[in-house]
């Protein structure tokens, strides 16, 4: 299955997004990379890198992130890994995560899972 990593400055936010997705995607390789090593607020190169490696089953990994350094640090991790099947996806975090997790669990391929995450832009609430 396609792996998914949720990157946030906040440990609880990243874990909360994972928890939110788990209800519909119990088996998907989905993991949180939130906060710093000591649990404090921020983004950690090492934690993100370890998270990406932990969900990589060879079918690609999508990384969803919150703002600012979450994007920049993830970008540096991806440059370091240098694998074009490990990519960031620019989408609303919660809506994109649930769409991607369900798609990954359903066995869709990398391009299709990414497209599902991007479709979150069209999911209007009001």
């Amino acid at each position, binding site marked *: 299955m396609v792996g998914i990593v949720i990157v946030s400055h906040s440990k609880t936010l990243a874990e909360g997004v994972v928890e939110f997705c788990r209800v519909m995607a119990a088996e998907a390789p989905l993991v949180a990379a939130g906060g710093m090593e000591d649990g404090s607020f*921020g983004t950690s*190169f090492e934690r993100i890198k370890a998270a990406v490696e932990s969900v990589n089953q060879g079918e690609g990994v999508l990384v969803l992130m919150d703002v600012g350094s979450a994007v*920049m640090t993830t970008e540096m991790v991806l440059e370091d890994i240098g694998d074009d099947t490990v990519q960031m996806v620019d989408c609303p975090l919660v809506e994109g995560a649930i769409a991607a997790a369900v798609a990954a669990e359903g066995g869709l391929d990398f391009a299709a899972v990414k497209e599902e995450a991007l479709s979150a832009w069209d999911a209007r609430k009001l």
Partner: protein
Amino acid sequence: MASKDQVIEIIHKVAAAIEREAQFLTDLDNAIGDGDHGINLSRGFKKVEEELPVVADKDIGAILKKVGMTLVSTVGGASGPLYGTAFMKAGDAVKDHVSISADDFIAVLEAAIGGVQLRGKAEKGEKTMLDAMLPALDAMKAAGTADAKAMLDAGVKAAKEGVEYTKTIIATKGRASYLGERSIGHQDPGATSFTVMLETIAEAI
């Protein structure tokens, strides 16, 4: 302008200056950000100080690269990937060097700025560290490299003016951009930390 040993000494001085100014930088970031800029950089440069002896026998390029990589993995905020990429690109500009001239320093700063822009995709006037870095580079080029001390002093003066300029503009990048017009009147923490670093370098030459 500086031998390798002097470069190492200057990095220690920069780390000490960041430590000294950490509370001030954090206070600035409290006003328009998330109040961690000084904490972030102080954590990063403490680790840099630990790592410096490990690369003491390497060339200046490798030392600057190590500083960058250390900042990337320890800072935790935007200034980590930004200054991290800056130092890594700076290292590339003086690969294999065992001393640096004033001309090399211009190349180092130019590469560092390129790194910040590559990573953060900001331009002049967005109320970021670039608003101190870009004018400093221009002023140093204008001053010329014949007298390194005069060149650096011109850079510091321009960086300080850049910091003052950040008080007059709206942030459009980084956390302060959430404040919109309310960011006016406050100086940018990153522009300030860059100025602290450049001033420390100028004082050491």
